[in-house]
């Protein structure tokens, strides 16, 4: 039975590692102050509490308004591991919200985060790369990452990190390369991606192929892809079991085959039969990319001659529901049947 006497002890904490969250609008300012305290335990507890709160976008907005990001940036350089891990986690959770991403860009969090790229703790780096990945999904965020010159470092990291972090980095790189690929091209991204294409992990292969798509959009990228003999590997990937890998490989071929050199390299590697097989794949992305890649190859006379006997496959695609596929099929047919 409950006793009427007030106990001498404090009520037991639900989570002893978490700082008590003040009521209402006092929660965040108090936590912010605690973040700046000199006492290690206070900081840690405040960080844990902040992690919980940051799932709510309203709290994120308020936190950015009161300048939590500055204190978090200062904490990134802390000597204690737990503090750093928790800080990166908070930042990662904030990056999942758009408000948080915009706040990152305004407060220059990216360079501050980049100081942790070589952190000894894998968890810390994982959080860091997750934050970058979420940031890169926003076009302005991708631009921010490119402008802060992180791409050479990230490309270099792809080689050396563990597998799951590699996936994250590749996911980050793909949108960034779509913004501006020149830095990556000058830091030997293509040979690295070529190696990743041969990895055993499905996800890594598909993400590497996606990054390759992005890198082969500018002309310089196409030239490098031809130069480093990536095309035979891409053709080999067209026969992969994974559909995502197939789709991305077809996409990379599609871009590379725009130049005459790429076209003939693809024809030499006999890309047409696998691509024709992909036209009947269940996934729409695969069909789209395959149709486009075949269109590119049909521009060359040899390709056109070969494909003229396979126009029926494109006719099948023409009656699809997907508008993009319809259009792609029509264009392909018109290119194949073009007479000079």
């Amino acid at each position, binding site marked *: 039975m409950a006793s009427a006497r007030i106990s001498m002890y404090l009520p037991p904490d639900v989570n002893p590692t978490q700082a008590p969250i003040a009521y209402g609008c006092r929660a965040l300012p108090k936590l912010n102050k605690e973040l700046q305290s000199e006492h290690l335990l206070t900081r840690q507890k405040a960080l844990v509490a902040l992690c919980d709160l940051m*799932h*709510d976008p309203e709290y994120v907005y308020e936190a950015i308004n009161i300048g939590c990001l500055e204190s978090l940036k200062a904490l990134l350089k802390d000597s204690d591991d737990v503090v750093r891990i928790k800080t990166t986690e908070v930042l990662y959770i904030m990056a*999942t919200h758009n408000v948080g991403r915009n706040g990152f860009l305004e407060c220059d969090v990216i360079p501050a985060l980049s100081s942790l790229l070589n952190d000894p703790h894998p968890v810390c780096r994982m959080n860091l790369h997750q934050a970058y990945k979420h940031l890169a*999904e926003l076009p302005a965020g991708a631009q921010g990452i490119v402008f802060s010159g992180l791409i050479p470092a990230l490309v270099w990291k792809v080689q050396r990190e563990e597998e799951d972090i590699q996936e994250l980095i590749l996911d980050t790189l793909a949108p960034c390369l*779509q913004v501006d690929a020149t830095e990556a091209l000058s830091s030997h991204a293509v040979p690295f991606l070529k190696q990743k294409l041969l990895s055993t992990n499905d996800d890594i292969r598909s993400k590497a192929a996606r990054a390759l*798509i992005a890198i082969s*959009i500018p002309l310089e990228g196409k030239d490098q892809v031809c130069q480093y003999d990536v095309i035979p590997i891409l053709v080999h990937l067209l026969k992969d079991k994974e559909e995502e890998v197939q789709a991305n490989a077809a*996409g990379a071929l*599609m*871009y590379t085959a*725009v*130049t*005459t050199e790429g076209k003939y390299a693809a024809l030499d590697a006999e890309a047409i039969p696998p691509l024709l097989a992909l036209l009947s794949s269940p996934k729409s*992305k695969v069909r*789209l*990319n395959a149709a*486009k890649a075949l*269109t*590119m190859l049909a*521009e060359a006379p040899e390709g056109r001659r070969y494909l003229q006997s396979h126009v029926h496959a494109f006719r099948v695609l023409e009656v699809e529901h997907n508008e*993009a596929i319809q259009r*792609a099929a029509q*264009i392909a047919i018109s290119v194949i049947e073009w007479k000079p």
Partner: protein
Amino acid sequence: MEMQRQQEVKRKALARKRAQEQLRPQTPEPVRGRKHVDVQTELYLEEIADRIIEVDMECQTDGFLDRPPTPLFIPAKSGTDVATQILQGELFDFDLEVKPMLEVLVGKTIEQALLEVMEEEELANLRAGQYAYEEIRNIELAEVQRLEEQERRHREEKERRKQQQWEIIHKHNETSQKISARAFAQRYLADLLPSVFGSLRDSGYFYDPIERDIELGFLPWVMNEVEKTMEYSMVGRTVLDMLIPEVVEKEAGHVRPEGGQALVPEIRGRARRPGRRERSAGLRLPGGRRGPGPAAVFRGRAVPGEAAAGGRRARGAHRADGDEEVLGEGRTLPTAGGRRAVKPWRPRERRGPPGTRARGPWGPAGYPRLLCNCE
């Protein structure tokens, strides 16, 4: 009495004071123009350093004794004793009561979990939408690049074809120009040879050497000899001419000088004329020497009529040869019909630089120099 004494004492005191004051040295009178003024030299402010007299005093109470504990207050018993007992199930039903609390607890947990899951799902949806957009964007971009590439290739092909065509036309033009130039040159040069030969022949390059030789060598020599012979004959005639007048004069010295003279010079004039014309029309004499002009012989005589005309003609012919100065003005040869007074023949003044010993055409006495060199 006492009062008086006191008053006197007072008076004396006063007088003493006055005397003392007078004796006391006083400040001297001020100098003229100055005045004594009282000045305070002491400090205006005085620090009051009044030390209050302090004395230490002590006092001490006795030591405390511990207060004995209050005895337990047990109030006197009053009222009635009452007892109560809560049986099971009477206070509250735990299951019922706990439900809302549990609901809240579980609900909150689930709500939180749902929020997180929804968050991730939202993110996944966003990502899927982004991928779909990326696909379409990639396709469109590839299409654009392909069209660009196609355009570039077509354009380059067109340029190359145009360039080829241009070169073909150029070559065509050149070839036709070359052909026409060659045809024209051929035609032009066709009659080059005959015309060359013709013009050469016309300008006398093809000459018969013998003919040439004869022309160049023989004929001049012949003419030279002819001239010499003629000159000899002329000289002879001239000498004769000179002799005859002298003789005639001499004889006329005896006979009247008339008539005979008129005829003689006329004949001589006429006889000479064709010869000169012939000479001037024919080949030039080598050395350009001329025989003595006939008119020169008759310089001294003024003869009107034909002889004058002959003389004028002779002058004209001489003028053509450039010996115009030989004849003077107004000197004419005598005519056939006229009997005029003839001026006595005087030797003409010597022309030519005075004092020259060179052998000009005139002899020392004004006579023409003779070819036979007889002086």
